[in-house]
């Protein structure tokens, strides 16, 4: 074998395209006769459209069509998706209520502002706090009921278990609703030619996109070709085709012209999907030595009308994190008049870890115990809900190594004991856990007579590094240098590898690449013995060996390209499929990590700055440490952002008052400290043959709590609401 390429740092193979402006994202596409659609959005949050006046828009220059709920094409409902313009109901502020199509963007925009809408307005439900009384248990998710109670023998209730504990802490935590706010706005370019759609629209999976659109448009999946090799960020927001692509496709068919719909930044905030805010209560009981005796976690999140919720804060954390004999988790939801709540980076874990890991810190303070020690003491060696062992868990190593690398022992044990000029400094930490799962995938690998290899499937690269994972794993499997392997992805005509989401990309696609490479080599060898023109003709395939691009048999050896040439072949290719087996009946495949954060809190202004952050991650074998590091760094900054910056604000009428990038705060460069990441190296081949686990979401989990815990360590102020804002710090400072 050549030197292994998996595990070494590789530059992104799509880098040269991305730094030169040649990577074409959805809205970068254009076609002859293309027209532009501009959305009109609702100015109320709840009600019914009584009438619309589009007469001015219709005779505005360049306008080709104005679609409203009163005249629009049919879009069939798809479960879990809102079909735009199909009825007059308004469910949230900023919902798309019309689409104006014109020859130019400027004309469409100008005409869109002349559309007048009359509403019957109803009282919107906008505040989780006010709607708490209407909360109901969510429908079961993946077989897990909304209320799970596990009690030790003889314990009558979780309340009794808490009451009997040596020490208890109990507090309420809230997290703000958030927007995915990918830098690429929601946009789509769709053509319709002879009954066939071509779709360019950033997505987490062209396969699901084609299926969903086929249903919505009433056509077969063969009628849609999705081409989306570049996605400008998604984070869950582009998991399913939102309104803009449904509208662009339906309009393209109706008008028989290519249509481009780019939502404005404001519309991208209001007209699509969000992460729900949450209200949570965590109660912990412990023995004097810190051993947990009881854990109760209740969480409420916003939902769509059927009460399904994506932000399962309690279920996705407290059922899995700590060993505790008495456990109760209660997950409720309430429908709200907000943009549809959906999955967003670590849905459930991101918000749930803030509550659980803040509570653990409160317990450590109450016990006067080191927070790292408290967590090590309660480390779960089997999964608390399923009772299964973990496929590989080195969380304690993460804690220990992190504490050492971060200089944890320099942390003050009393608040306000560290003052640097006018800044209190403090350190906090938290646990990260993210569950692993994988999907089936089929990948094609080809060996070509020019000495290169091809690896392809319909997976997506959202910035995750998949463009590079494909050739790295293929090169590794074929014993070739990475530069000799050409990747292809993001096209629905390639072999199916499923959507990426839930950190399943590498673990889904990687094993299938290995299988396809194996099959491609087998195909090459069988050709080599079967082709009369082959120097190996007539040999037993078992006599041939493939190693690092060379085929060897008795007495001779040659490069695969020479062999292909000798046989007059341009190449050989094979599919390979890999799918999870029954291993999930035996193991749980979580990824783990420990987060360490140092903050500085200004004693006069209350300003919080994160000055250092470290994540130590146990995620199996890291395929490409360079891009993996970027993903974890990005996730950790998302956690810092949730802690200090991000939150959608709705006023009492349901209006999203900060739906733009100036007012919806995400960090800028100057907000972000040096972020250090360290990966443990424990390949997890119980999970998949590649030995990797997921990393896309792991970095965000726990980070916000680590910030809050550091603020407490610095100042003695416990902040239980995200984002943490100055006024709450100031209130505690004097």
């Amino acid at each position, binding site marked *: 074998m050549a030197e292994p390429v998996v595990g070494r740092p590789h*530059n*992104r193979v799509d*880098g*040269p*395209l*991305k*730094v*030169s*402006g040649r*990577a*074409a*994202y959805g*809205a970068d596409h*254009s076609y002859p006769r293309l027209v532009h659609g501009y959305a009109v*959005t609702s*100015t109320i949050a709840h009600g019914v459209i009584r009438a619309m*006046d589009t*007469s*001015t828009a219709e*005779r*505005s*220059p*360049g306008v080709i069509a104005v679609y409203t709920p009163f005249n629009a094409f049919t879009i069939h409902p798809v479960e879990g998706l809102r079909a735009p313009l199909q009825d007059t109901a308004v469910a949230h502020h900023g919902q798309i209520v019309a689409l104006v199509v014109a020859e*130019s*963007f*400027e*004309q469409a925009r*100008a*005409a869109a*502002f*002349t*559309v*007048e809408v009359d509403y019957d307005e109803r009282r919107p439900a906008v505040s989780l706090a006010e709607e708490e009384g209407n909360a109901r248990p969510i429908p079961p998710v993946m077989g897990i009921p909304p209320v799970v109670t596990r009690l030790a023998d003889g314990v009558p209730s979780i309340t009794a278990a808490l009451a009997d504990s040596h020490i208890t802490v109990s507090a309420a935590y809230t997290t703000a609703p958030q927007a995915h706010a*990918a*830098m*690429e*706005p929601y946009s789509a370019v769709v053509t319709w030619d002879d009954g066939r759609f071509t779709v360019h629209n950033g997505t987490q999976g062209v396969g699901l996109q084609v299926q969903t659109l086929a249903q919505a448009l009433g056509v077969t999946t063969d009628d849609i070709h999705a081409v989306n090799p*570049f*996605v*400008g*960020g998604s*984070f869950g927001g582009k998991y399913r085709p939102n309104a803009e692509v449904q509208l662009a496709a339906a309009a393209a068919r109706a008008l028989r012209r290519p249509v481009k719909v*780019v939502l*404005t*930044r404001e519309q991208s905030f209001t007209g699509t999907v969000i992460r729900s805010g949450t209200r949570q209560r965590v109660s912990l009981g412990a023995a004097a030595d810190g051993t947990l005796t009881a854990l109760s976690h209740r969480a409420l999140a916003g939902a769509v009308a059927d009460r399904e919720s994506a932000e399962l804060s309690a279920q996705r954390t407290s059922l899995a994190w700590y060993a505790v004999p008495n456990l109760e988790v209660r997950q409720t939801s309430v429908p709200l008049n907000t943009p549809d709540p959906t999955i967003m980076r670590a849905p459930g874990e991101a918000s749930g870890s803030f509550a659980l890991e803040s509570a653990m810190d409160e317990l450590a303070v109450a016990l006067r115990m080191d927070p790292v020690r408290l967590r090590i003491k309660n480390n779960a060696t089997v999964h608390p809900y399923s009772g299964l062992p973990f496929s590989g868990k080195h969380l304690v190593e993460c804690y220990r190594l992190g504490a050492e690398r971060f200089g944890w022992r320099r942390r003050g044990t009393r608040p306000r004991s560290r003052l640097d000029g006018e800044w209190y400094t403090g350190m906090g930490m938290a646990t990260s856990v993210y569950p692993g799962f994988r999907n089936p995938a089929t990948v094609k690998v080809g060996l070509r007579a020019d000495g290169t290899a091809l690896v392809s499937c319909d997976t997506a690269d959202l*910035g*995750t590094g998949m463009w590079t994972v494909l050739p790295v794993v293929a090169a590794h499997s074929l014993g070739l240098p990475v530069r000799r392997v050409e990747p292809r992805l993001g096209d629905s005509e390639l072999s199916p590898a499923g959507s990426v989401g839930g950190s399943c990309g590498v673990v889904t696609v990687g094993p299938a690449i290995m299988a396809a490479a194996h099959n491609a080599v087998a195909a090459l060898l069988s050709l080599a013995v079967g082709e009369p023109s082959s120097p190996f003709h007539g040999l037993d395939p078992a006599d041939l060996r493939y190693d690092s691009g060379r085929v060897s048999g008795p007495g001779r050896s040659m490069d695969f390209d020479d062999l292909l040439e000798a046989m007059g072949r341009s190449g050989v290719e094979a599919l390979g499929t890999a799918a999870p087996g029954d291993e999930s009946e035996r193991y749980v495949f979580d990824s783990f990590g420990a987060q360490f954060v140092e903050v500085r809190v200004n004693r006069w202004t209350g300003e919080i700055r994160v000055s250092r952050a470290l994540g130590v991650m146990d995620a199996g074998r890291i395929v490409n440490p360079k*891009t993996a590091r*970027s993903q974890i*760094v*990005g996730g950790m*900054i998302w956690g810092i952002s949730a802690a200090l910056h991000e939150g959608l604000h709705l006023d009492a009428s349901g209006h999203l008052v900060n739906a733009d*990038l*100036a007012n919806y705060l*995400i*960090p*800028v*460069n100057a907000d*972000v400290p*040096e972020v250090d990441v360290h990966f443990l190296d424990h390949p997890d081949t119980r999970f998949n043959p590649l030995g990797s686990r997921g990393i896309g979401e792991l970095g965000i989990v726990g980070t916000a709590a680590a910030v809050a815990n550091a603020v407490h360590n610095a100042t003695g102020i416990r902040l239980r609401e995200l984002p943490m804002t100055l006024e709450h710090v100031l209130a505690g400072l004097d």
Partner: protein
Amino acid sequence: MSPEPERPPRPARVSRRGFIGRTTAASLGAGALPRPDQATAAAAAAAAAGAPGQPLPGPPGTEVTLRVNGAEHRVGVDNRATLLDTLRERLRITGPKKGCDRGQCGACTVHIDGRTALSCLTLAVAAHEREVTTVEGLADGDVPHPVQRAFIKADAFQCGFCTPGQIMSAVALVEHGPVGSDDAIREFMSGNLCRCAAYPHIVRAVRQAGSTGRKR
């Protein structure tokens, strides 16, 4: 295609006064107003401008000369068209990205006459006969700009959508320098949002490109 119904003869130079006069008229005529609460007034104004049932008159257009990455383009534009939309939709130069269209994100950053500019806040007519450089114009033939190389090496992006803007800002810093401390880099680069949060790696890339010299 170019929407303007009446195309004035190519101006020797777009005069600021003449331009303002025309766009004001356009705003009144077609209601190119960004705020929905002004839509009613715009509609009324628009309705007054044309008899019922008749097509409304369009805004005047202007023929401008854009020099982009060394090539000259003569193009008739809607006076309301931004440089960003003109580059992207008319000239098919799609390196500059539209992240917000409001001057809030930096994804559309280009250089105009050697200085950074937000192309979403620059009307195309305002770029008449000026030198525009986009990310596509940085490389010297096949040789990428040092900042482009440094971005790849430092993995200073993930999805890459903000990257053309980040790079245009970084090039301005590196070429006009001095690049300064890491904090100075962070400050200078803070007009360019990156939701993937590649920030620490962007700082590294800028630092590295700054130290390897300004010249390509």
